[in-house]
């Protein structure tokens, strides 16, 4: 299928409404980045999402868009509550995969001699890799509490501080979680994985604030040039995967696929007003809350590791959570539709919420600045901190990109890395890396990703979020 792309301006492209599309598509991208999309099926996935019932305005793609399953990764779509749907494939398997950034009082110049030791200490203390088990083993009763309470459960257990909660999207817990809808398999898989990083593109990164673009906002975010920061990327682990898989299978079994007229089976859905749709949202909220508890515990492990490895006091380290954002979710949010505040179900599949200054949902600490938007890049270049901007409310249902976005498949990356030592190449650039997986470093090498700086530039110029600071990696652990 040939997909027509019309340039709206230098950062936006229109896919006109055709065939079964209920709304047009909009792709945030520039002339350079759009070239990558012409060779895979990501634009077709934008079109497919546009055919789903109850979708409003446009099927959107953020500038880190790449080929996923069902929705494109970087896809955003909002649905009316009465006629609309929720799609487990539109949220993804790793429900509330997301990241959190912590600031410290340490200057990177002070810790530079110890980076290798610190990365080894993180690697020892933070469970990572396939099927790794965490330091926290849950009873079924406690797992249900995690599913209901999210990050606050972890804080009550001594992992972090109460003030971390207002620095977490949705205060670290989505409403509507109901553990009674979970399968035995999901419950079983959640018991031993709390406080684990996972595998694939999940990581913990030690960083330095390399450049500040907006001093006023950086000051309010407690960011300064030369500062040490820590970024964690992880999600709901096997618990979230099982919940997604359970509901995909249930919806597939119970739906007449012909009646749904699905362009892709992964887009199977339930009506938002149906019992199945409501149960999925309750189960999804359990996984989202589990993920927030997970990242809260990972942050605590990072804190303890730094204090011990550097032999410093908590006051000297002064680690503070800047913000925790979620990447894979469906949430009921108020958005302006035809001049009216309307409750919509916004799916973000590999996208970050981006709320502007003054938004009523924001905590007081970020009311003037807008929400911190965290954009991790690949392990060899940069990550960015942005602040949510008004353009996101007008153009993208309050959303921004979530990372650099892959440009190479994993198999191509492994082929390209043949005979090379990615570990050594990164070390030559001053970045210490340790990974558990046999293929992880090759699959995740910097060339496998788009240029994060260009992706962020599209977001900044489109007014979805404004650049605040750029972070450079010093060391990374991966699963």
């Amino acid at each position: 299928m040939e997909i027509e792309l019309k340039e709206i301006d230098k950062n936006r492209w229109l896919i006109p409404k055709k065939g079964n599309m209920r709304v047009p598509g909009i792709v945030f991208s520039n002339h350079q980045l759009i070239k990558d999309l012409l060779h895979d099926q990501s634009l077709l996935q934008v079109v497919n999402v546009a055919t789903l019932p109850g979708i409003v305005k446009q099927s959107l793609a953020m500038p880190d868009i790449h080929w996923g399953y069902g929705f494109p990764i970087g896809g955003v779509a909002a649905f009316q509550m009465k006629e609309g749907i929720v799609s487990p494939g539109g949220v993804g398997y790793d429900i509330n995969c997301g990241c959190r950034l912590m600031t410290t009082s340490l200057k990177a110049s002070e810790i530079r001699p110890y980076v290798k030791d610190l990365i080894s200490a993180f690697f020892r203390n933070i469970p990572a890799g396939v099927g790794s088990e965490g330091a926290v083993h849950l009873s079924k009763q406690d797992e249900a509490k995690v599913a209901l309470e999210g990050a606050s459960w972890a804080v009550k257990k001594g992992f972090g501080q109460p003030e971390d909660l207002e620095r977490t999207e949705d205060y670290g817990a989505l409403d509507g979680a109901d553990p009674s809808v979970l399968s035995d398999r999901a419950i079983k898989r959640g018991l031993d994985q709390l406080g684990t990083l996972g595998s694939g593109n999940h990581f913990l990164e030690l960083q330095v604030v390399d450049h500040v673009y907006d001093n006023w906002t950086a000051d309010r975010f407690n960011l300064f040039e030369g500062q040490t920061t820590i970024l964690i990327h992880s999600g709901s682990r096997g618990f979230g995967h099982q919940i997604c898989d359970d509901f995909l299978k249930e919806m597939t079994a119970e739906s007449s696929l012909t009646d749904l007229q699905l362009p892709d089976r992964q887009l199977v859905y339930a009506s938002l007003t149906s019992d199945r749709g409501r149960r999925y949202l309750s189960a999804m909220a359990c996984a989202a809350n589990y993920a927030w508890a997970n990242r809260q515990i990972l942050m605590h492990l990072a804190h303890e590791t730094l204090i011990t490895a550097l032999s410093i006091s908590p006051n000297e380290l002064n680690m503070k959570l800047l913000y925790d954002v979620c990447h894979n979710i469906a949430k009921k949010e108020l958005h302006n539709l035809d001049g009216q505040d309307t409750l919509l179900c916004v799916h973000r599949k590999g996208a970050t919420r981006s709320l502007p200054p003054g938004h009523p949902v924001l905590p007081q600490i970020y009311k003037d600045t807008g929400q911190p938007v965290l954009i991790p890049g690949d392990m060899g270049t940069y990550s960015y901190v942005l602040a949510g901007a008004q353009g996101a409310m007008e153009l993208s249902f309050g959303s921004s990109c979530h990372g650099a976005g892959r440009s190479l498949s994993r198999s191509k990356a492994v082929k390209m890395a043949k005979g090379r030592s990615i570990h050594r190449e990164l070390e030559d650039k001053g970045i210490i890396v340790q990974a558990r997986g046999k293929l992880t470093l090759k699959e995740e090498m910097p060339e496998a990703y788009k240029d994060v700086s260009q992706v962020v530039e599209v977001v900044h110029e489109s007014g979805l979020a404004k650049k605040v600071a750029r972070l450079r990696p010093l060391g990374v652990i991966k699963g």
Partner: protein
Amino acid sequence: MTKTIPQYTILDHTADLGVSITGSSLIDLFENAGRTLLHLMFRIRLVKKADLIRISISGNDLADLMNKWLSEILYLYAGENLVVTGINIDSLSPSSLKATLKTSPFNPKFHEIIRDIKAVTYHQIAVTDENGIWTARVIFDL
């Protein structure tokens, strides 16, 4: 229960991993698909002790059945810590599958992990027959 390395082709997918698997019959295809999944995930050095388990799956059609079959093998590892070391499909129809699986408790000494496959997606999943050659296309979430 055969132990041969299955025939499959890796399909390019930007974020994840796709495979095309063939078989001379439908049963051969499903057995190969199971072995392909295991070959992508593990190198099994030694099978010290194997327990037999029987599974029964139903699906809407062959593509759904393929998804559920592979998901079951994946769950045995992810949820039960069991590595499937042998596959025998006892019966297969377009809507149901019965199989006997040899399983061993996961042990990193004997089961080297090659890559983490987290889920079997429905994205572009297909099971087709062309002139007696059965082909399946499956994309895994990594």
